């Protein structure tokens, strides 16, 4: 954990920064697709749980991506 932020939150926030130029929905879709492709299930689940907890340390677009991950595809 870096600076009290769980690793999956730090990583998700870093990814979100790369998509900040897109609309929130586009960005969230791109982030969710990326996480789906390369993240281990436990990390994705941790992110979803964290987003659902209402935590404030998660980038809003990353939080939206977590919701998209949660939704059945």
């Amino acid at each position, binding site marked *: *954990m*870096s600076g009290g932020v769980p*690793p*999956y939150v*730090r*990583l998700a926030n*870093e*990814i979100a*920064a*790369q998509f*900040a*130029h897109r609309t929130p929905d586009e960005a969230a879709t791109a982030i969710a697709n*990326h996480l789906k*492709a*390369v*993240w*281990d*299930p*436990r*990390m994705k689940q941790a992110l979803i749980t964290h987003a659902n907890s209402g935590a404030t340390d998660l980038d809003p677009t990353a939080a939206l991506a977590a919701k998209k991950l949660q939704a059945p595809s």
Partner: protein
Amino acid sequence: MTLLKEPDFGTPARPGAATTELTIDGVTVKVPPGTSVMRAAKEAGVDVPKLCATDNLEAFGSCRLCVVEIDGVKGTPASCTTPVREGMVVRTQNERLGKLRRGVMELYISDHPLDCLTCSANGDCELQDMAGVTGLREVRYGSGVEAGANHLDLPTDSSNPYFDFEASKCIACSRCVRACDEVQGTLALTIEGRGFDSKVAAGAGVSFFDSDCVSCGACVQACPTATLQEKSVVELGMPTRTVLTTCAYCGVGCSFKAELRGDELVRMVPYKNGGANEGHSCVKGRFAFGYASHPDRVLEPMVRNTLSEPWRKVSWEEAIGFTARRLREIQAAHGQGSIGAITSSRTTNEEVYAVQKMVRAVFGNNNVDTCARVCHSPTGYGLKQTFGESAGTQDFRSVDDSDVILLIGSNPTDAHPVFGSRMKQRLRQGAKLIVVDPRRIDLVRSPHVEAAYHLELAPGTNVAIVNALAHVVVTEGLVDREFVASRCEDFEAWEAFIAQPEHSPEAVSDISGVPAEKIREAARLYATGGNAAIYYGLGVTEHSQGSTMVMGMANLAMATGNIGRPGVGVNPMRGQNNVQGSCDMGSFPHELPGYRHVSDDDVRDIYEKLWGTPILNEPGLRIPNMFDAAIDGSFKALFVQGEDIAQSDPNTQHVFAALGALELLVVQDLFVNETAKFAHVLLPGTSFLEKDGTFTNAERRINRVRPIMAPRTGKQEWEIVCEIAQAMGYPMHYDSAAQIMDEIALTTPTFAGVSFARLDELGSIQWPCNVEHPSGTPIMHEDEFTRGKGRFMETVYVPTSERSTRKFPLILTTGRILSQYNVGAQTRRTANVAWHAEDVLEIHPHDAEVRGVSDGDLVALSSRVGRTELRARISDRMPVGVCYTTFHHPVSGANVVTTDNSDWATNCPEYKVTAVQVDLVPEPVADEAAREAVVAGGNR
């Protein structure tokens, strides 16, 4: 095989069709125009005596031994410097020529020691051979002192750790001087003096060791006598047999003739027919193989229940049984996903394939990653997104056709020396060089090479710079519209994006510190200078935007049409010998072999049917994720194949915490490395001299690694993996490494045509190798991209969060040095430590002065995550505010200060940007004696 002596044609081959016909000693031969008479004669089966000529050097015409008669030509011209002519009639042997040659030989021998029987070159001396060939029976001038003035008392220079310079045996043929020039490109050697005083010198009045010599050994190989001779040959005698194999160091993947007496390796000689190196080598590949027989080698398995216990040597059966039992116990207690493995780029394709199979088929998860995670994983991601294939586009030979070379974050003369030499030769022929690097690497300015532009950017601003280069291309009308229209997609959106003012050189200048006009001129040169090639290294990938930068370079190449032919392309310089191969073999947690995603049902079906077990369709943990999961308690056991993660991975304290949290750590390695200090099982590994398999180099070239001896541990590494799998209840067995390659070919389309037999037949193969390309693919994307259309990607510059602050005002960047390799586990156990006994911190004179630091002072280097100490070297190679070090020694441990920051797409660590402070350490540290002892220990 018996000792392989490659034929020497005397002068280099000339390109083109064999259209010039001539007659030599009555034999008619056709050769390409420009070929020398000497070479034509050899091709006709006629050996012309020679001493100063050899076929990797241009003709010199000094020894006068190769004289011939040519109808219609006066005198006796030297055959090495005389080009063929249509209808030429040549005689190479008659009484007159024989007399001339004996006269030449008499003069040579009159000033040469007559100690042939005890000479180290006895049996491999061209002077000796020529004395025989010319029928020399007497030396009328006498020999030695009786012949008058001579050079027989000249001293021997033994300063180089690997070879001697016995000046008394020198015949001043200049082959060594020319090899240093034409092959290596260092120009360290010269002929000093005139006439009788002419002698070979390494610089002005200094020894070989203190000269500019980089110890590549090209001079030793070129020497026709015992003058430049490997110390190993002096000590052991001439080798008697050859095994063709592949170097175990960098991603160039040089082919070598391992020359042995029995099972004892005498010397490594680069192989002329080696596709990657074509007869050249560097100091590591040629000389630094002694680690394989170093007393530190672990040869028996060791086990311990806890880290506080001493190691216990055990049988293979016990070690494998212990490992298998503990892995199953941990899975039973903590879940199927609680264990995993890391593969190594220092092991063969077959060994890597076996480990990823063990993880997927036996562990039942995808928790397998490779050390390429921390070097070139962004290459895989970026090139896959844009071109459709996770590999470089060219072969090394392609650089010979480049007119412009854009070198970004790569220092080939240190990190990939044999390719660096090749690049230098092309630059000296007139190709233009653009260097993008915060540090003034040697290629920016070295003898006969000077970069047209050096964009000395601030660390972390690569993407801003590549966007600015592309901005110039787009806004100044330099786009190759025809190429883009026919070969690419998503261009219009990208064009609009990159044309935005924020990407202009003027805007980027403030961010990067590079003057706008310099960026514009470099972009124009790249776009309009002819064939333009991009070569890049870890200075691109090891950033928080490593993947974005790879895509940015691909955009630039596509926009200018610099893809799909010789001389162009986007080329990653891979760090370790099998980075490409370890990635190809499915050791990424989201990809099966051939870069096919684990979620692809059709691909999984291939393996599920063959392996008889289901494969998870979700990605596994990457290396940094494994560390995080170990600390949070969900990951409990790790198998590490040949990789010293405790030294090589960033934020050492974090890595130590993760390794310390594991219930089982299994290390397969040559030595008790830093990682092994946290291990419960140590499975001794095999050196490249014992391995049987293949390595795949940076140009996708699959080369055979052939054993020169049986494994000193008794087992090949893939056999050990198979036995663990079997002990865990899965029937995994191969009869040979060749059988593993057959399975790879059976299941991986890009390897479909590869087999050991085919490799033996062709020498090497560049994948893809399949029905369409049965002999491999030197250059990719010629007619279309692997993914069909090349895809332009928007590459937004997002600054790294790692920035200099009041507390940490400098930026540290890291790299490599020529004589050492990665974490130094191999090279620190060779005489290479003579050149680099410890890592040092290069610091700009201004930054040093304000801190009261002088050259050689001990300094503390600290970042927000850690602190270490090392010696300072004052250097203006970096701009003010930037310092630099290497990571070859565990004593200083550069990664103590590097952070968790990583590439957003792949988690490749951001080694290249760390905010640090440097402080003078006023008093010697308490353990200085211990430091020195460790360094001295490496000198063994």
